[in-house]
């Protein structure tokens, strides 16, 4: 804890581009660009040991996801299923469930908790998988790691290329049972946990936890219907 501030400062490499060679316009512009980009070059200190592991996990995962997305010859469902499988490994759904339900978590009995985590997990994995599958030309740049209070770590990434060029996505990881896993995804400053929490609070405001569970189940069911129309028809 003593060195929090130091870690924080040293590790937040700015990610500001330092490339100068393509700026062949006028001398003046070049000098200006160099002045602007200067500090980014200086901030290249040693990465703290704590953030190294979660950072490697995010880098590795980004690589795997991009590799799956690149397999355009395979059917979309297979790619989505594979991304879902990756999501299953790297997200801590139990912690996320508890965070999104906040104070309402206490009102759930054990059975409801298990069911909630299962359905929420399925919901997140599906939305994650189907959304990601649309993007194929992007690269993910992991540009910084930051130590958060109580030993959480945030890994900052930026999408390069494609429709969302420059979009910033930060992953917050926590170590539980000796395993670093994602507990929140922050897209352009919008925390997924906060967003779901506010929506679930609204549902629980006007209904019970069973209402929320059945909404979750219905949604997951709808998505499955959409994805596997032939199977769904065969079952009837």
């Amino acid at each position, binding site marked *: 804890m003593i060195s929090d501030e130091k870690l924080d400062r040293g590790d937040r490499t700015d990610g500001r581009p330092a490339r100068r060679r393509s700026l062949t316009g006028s001398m003046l512009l070049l000098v200006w660009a160099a002045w602007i980009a200067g500090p980014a070059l200086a901030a290249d200190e040693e990465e703290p040991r704590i953030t190294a592991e979660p950072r490697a996990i995010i880098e590795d995962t980004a690589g795997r996801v991009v590799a799956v997305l690149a397999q355009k010859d395979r059917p979309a469902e297979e790619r989505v299923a594979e991304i879902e499988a990756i999501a299953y490994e790297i997200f801590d759904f139990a912690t996320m469930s508890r965070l999104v339900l906040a104070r309402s978590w206490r009102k759930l009995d054990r059975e409801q908790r298990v069911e909630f985590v299962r359905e929420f*997990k399925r919901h997140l994995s599906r939305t994650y998988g189907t959304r990601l599958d649309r993007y194929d030309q992007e690269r993910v740049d992991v540009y910084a790691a930051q130590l958060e209070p109580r030993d959480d770590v945030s890994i900052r990434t930026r999408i390069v290329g494609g429709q969302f060029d420059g979009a910033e996505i930060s992953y917050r990881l926590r170590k539980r*049972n000796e395993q670093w896993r994602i507990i929140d995804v*922050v897209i352009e400053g919008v925390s997924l946990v*906060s967003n779901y929490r506010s929506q*679930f609070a609204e549902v629980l405001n006007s209904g019970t936890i069973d209402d929320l569970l059945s909404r979750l189940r219905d949604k997951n069911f709808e998505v499955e219907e959409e994805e596997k129309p032939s199977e769904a028809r065969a079952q009837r």
Partner: protein
Amino acid sequence: MLARSLTIWSLAWLAVGCATPREPDPWEPMNRRVFAFNEAVDRHALEPVARGWDFLLPEVAQTGIQNFFDNLGMPVILLNDVLQAKPRAVGWDLLRIFYNTTFGLGGFIDVATRVEIPRNDEDFGQTLGYWGVPPGPYLVVPLLGPYTLRDGAGGVADAFSAPHSWFIPIWASVGLTSVDLLNLRAIFLEEIAENRADAFDYYVFVRNAYLQNRRARVADRTDSTVLEQDEAEDLYYFDDEEEWEDEGLESGDYDLEEPGAGADAEAQEGDRVGSEPGEEEVAP
């Protein structure tokens, strides 16, 4: 122009400063009605037209149009860089305008991003926020969508300070903005459809995302959540850490029998079962 923006500024201070409530959405009943209206307009008019637009125009054309409007909006960003006293951003944005207007053929090609000139995003709402004006109540504006009182006032100032709007008639400005919005709507067809379908309460989804995003933009930290200490505590930590350990819940309890995931779950389960009895044997 400066006088006008100063007037807006002081009005914003007065209006927002007095009216910022603890609850971010005191006008929710009204906002929900306007939101429902906007949604209906989108479903019946904007989205269908955007689908046609998307069908007719190839992706490159859409991107080019988006780039053009981004470039057209740069002077407003530049002005707000100045108003927020950010010389670095001024430098980058001047470079960006220069590159995209010349080599980028009037803005249609985003050359600046290719030579790694960073993108800045500023507007009057952010400038007000930067100098400490709180966002004020959440406000859904008919046809225009989510705002806060502060950012709505900022939006009016943005519209007046766009240089191109001084030289062309008002209907032409409105026309240009419509094309910009339609093109953007076409680009985000799938995302918006998915967000709608996935949301548990789409009104709350949009409100939460908008408020968080604006806060991050004001702080120039879109790569993280911008939270006060107590908010971060509330969002990320439990009241009672020990309770968690007692539950004995682990990933194995929730795993589904699905291809890919099932195998992983079994492997994890196997590890645990394998190691635990071993430890018990050692103990006696």
